[in-house]
């Protein structure tokens, strides 16, 4: 079955069964608390890390976090927590 059709089928199943998308498609899940704390689940590692810029690899593409005094509070196999004054979040 082509990849595109399989994706559409999975999307319909998730919609009918009301399943969380990040579980079904294994897509990243980002949770922000104000502009001070960001949790990223299902990440693919750190691409670039600086005090004012953090680039995190995702399944498809990357997310760039910009701000001041950024720090990775914890990084594990699938989950990462970022703290600092976050000013911008950009997907590419």
């Amino acid at each position, binding site marked *: 079955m082509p990849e595109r059709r399989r994706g559409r089928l999975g999307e319909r199943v998730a919609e009918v069964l009301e399943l969380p998308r990040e579980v079904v498609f294994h897509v990243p899940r980002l949770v922000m608390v104000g502009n001070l704390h960001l949790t990223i689940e299902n990440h693919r*590692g*750190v*691409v*670039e*890390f*600086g*005090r004012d810029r953090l680039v995190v690899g995702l399944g498809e593409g990357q997310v760039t976090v910009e701000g001041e005094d*950024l*720090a*990775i*509070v*914890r*990084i*594990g*196999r699938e989950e*990462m927590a970022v703290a600092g004054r976050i000013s911008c979040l950009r997907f590419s």
Partner: protein
Amino acid sequence: MRLLLLWPSGFVRVVVSGAAPERFVNLAARRGIPLWQLREEGHCIRGVMAAAHFLRIRPLARRSRCRVHVQARAGLPFVWRKVVRRPGLVAGALAALALIMTAGSTVLFVEVSGASAGHREEILAVAHRAGLRPPIPRFLLNGAALEEEVAASLPYVSWARLTFQGTLARLEVGEQELPPPPPPPTGPADVVATKPGELVYLLPLMGVARVQAGQRVVAGQVLISGVIPGRKGGEKETGPPRLVSARGVCLARVAYQAVVRLPCHEVVLRPTGRTWHGWVVLVAGKEIVLRGKVPFELYHTSRTRAVLGGRNGKPAVEVIRTTYHEVEPVTFVRTPGEAALAARDKALAEVLSQVPPGAEREVIEAEVEVRDEGATARVTAFTIEEIGRVMPR
């Protein structure tokens, strides 16, 4: 908070330097080695990792072409390693701790509160006799027994409570405030006998005598009545009675008696002077016997309790020390004559303790019956005393 949880197993602060420290971070995360508090500082990344994981990162560092330096170590394993190298320090710390605990749990000062100034010295003297003699370790004090002793020994003390505040033992007492004597009844009243006896003198000051001198009366019997029959016009004509509050002097001969039997062969338990301590710890309702097998066959016991912690009156840990005083049976052998004398003296002492302090002692009669197996003494003391009491009708 995370570092606090890591402290028991230990953690290290590391500095990752090299061409791409991010690659090292990713490799570590993928291998299940979590990193905390990562910050970029001048082409390096500083962070924290568990001490147990540090030995696993060498291949990762080689693969990512990074160098990992340990900046600081912290946690229990590192502290323990330092402590083990300095036994003198450990011994000193333990000795200091023991000294602080001993000094902190020793009573050095005693304070009495709640008592009038004139009674404080006497209360302190009783407490001193009961064992409150500073300096004394707190666990050796039997607080409940001391409180009972103080309350029982001093008539003006109704209750006593012993509390501790550091090295200060505070003995709080409540002095009895006796109510004022009730005023003599103003309404109709009789004079009644408070105890049985033979009336020797009766003088009614108000009311009508119901008994005569020489008559035997029982307790509760009316001696002088407060009801005066009425008269009219000087003639002996009975009208409505008049009620008065009876008054008068009612002296009676009262007998007090005591009977004592003493055998010629008597077995008593005499302390040998040897003692043994048993320790029991009560934790959450469970009794843990630390030392419990008593080496004596016959003994008397006394208990001391120490309470540690707890709330709402329930102690968390209770340590009970039971002191066993060994006793031995000793047979006293007396001749019948000695038994008679001892029985008479004992009976006399018992009788005299019954006589009220204001009574006039008239005569004391002693009757001793001597047999081969022992003696029986019967001592009777006769007193002349006031037995009348005004009772409202």
